[in-house]
């Protein structure tokens, strides 16, 4: 059987085949951990802040039910304090990868991380 397969020039599986799923899995997961360079803060659907992630600072944003405090530290961003009842946005902790978001529903605040290839920055 194996002799016959060799003669025909094609085989069902060859050892090199394992490369293809490995490369594709690598592509799927590597893209995830791309660092962002800017943060975009939206309050009630409107963009209120665009800041570089490299600057350590604290921002106050007026939301629907109160003031949210956002902290940028060492290239990461988190919701430091929020007036919302469940504090889910605070519990999410720091985020730093491109496309990630912290969303505070009660206070209508969205923090999104953008990067160099961000479509918003290309069109600006």
């Amino acid at each position, binding site marked *: 059987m194996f002799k016959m397969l060799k003669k025909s020039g094609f085989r069902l599986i*060859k050892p090199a085949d394992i490369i*293809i799923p490995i490369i594709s899995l690598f592509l799927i997961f590597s893209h995830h951990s791309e660092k962002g360079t800017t943060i975009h803060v939206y309050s009630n659907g409107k963009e209120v802040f665009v800041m570089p992630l490299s600057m350590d600072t604290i921002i106050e944003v007026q939301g629907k039910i109160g003031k949210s405090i956002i902290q940028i530290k060492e290239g990461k961003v988190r919701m430091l304090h929020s007036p919302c009842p469940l504090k889910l946005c605070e519990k999410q902790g720091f985020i730093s990868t491109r496309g990630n978001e912290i969303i505070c529903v009660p206070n209508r605040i969205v923090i999104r991380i953008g990067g160099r290839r961000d*479509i918003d920055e290309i069109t600006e």
Partner: protein
Amino acid sequence: MTKSQSKFATTVILIIISGFLYGVETFIPRPVPFIRLGLGNVLVLFALINLGTKEGFQVGIGKSIVGALLTGSFLSPSLILSLAGTISSITIMWALYTTGFFGIIGLSMAGAITNGVVQAIVVSCLFAGTYAFAYVGRIMTMSGMITGCITGFITYGLLKFAERRSGGTEHK
């Protein structure tokens, strides 16, 4: 019939069958709109290996055009998508096949993934933003690995069948 005539006849038959399969596939309900099994790819890979490089490209491009005519999407964005995906996936499969290191499953997987990823790139360039590509591209890669595996098995069965019928070297 001479050798080249029989090759031409086989190519035409493969184009018609693969175009028909492409058309039928669009009518099967699917969980996510862009995931499809890609049975047309079986015949493209079959033509690439059994008939030759030129015939592989002919079957692939013919498949897209016949399929678009059958589904009524000729000269619409979906034809551009399908042509872009098909041509790039054949190029990749041909390049990998000529190295000789890859089996049918690997070729089929690479073809399916390329097809999906290129379509995702074209979609995000034409209509949606780069964020869409990050998600659609990932879904396409995952589904391409699975569907490529399935179509690889079918292609292998077809190649073995053709080999038994013709002695394997009729066209070469």
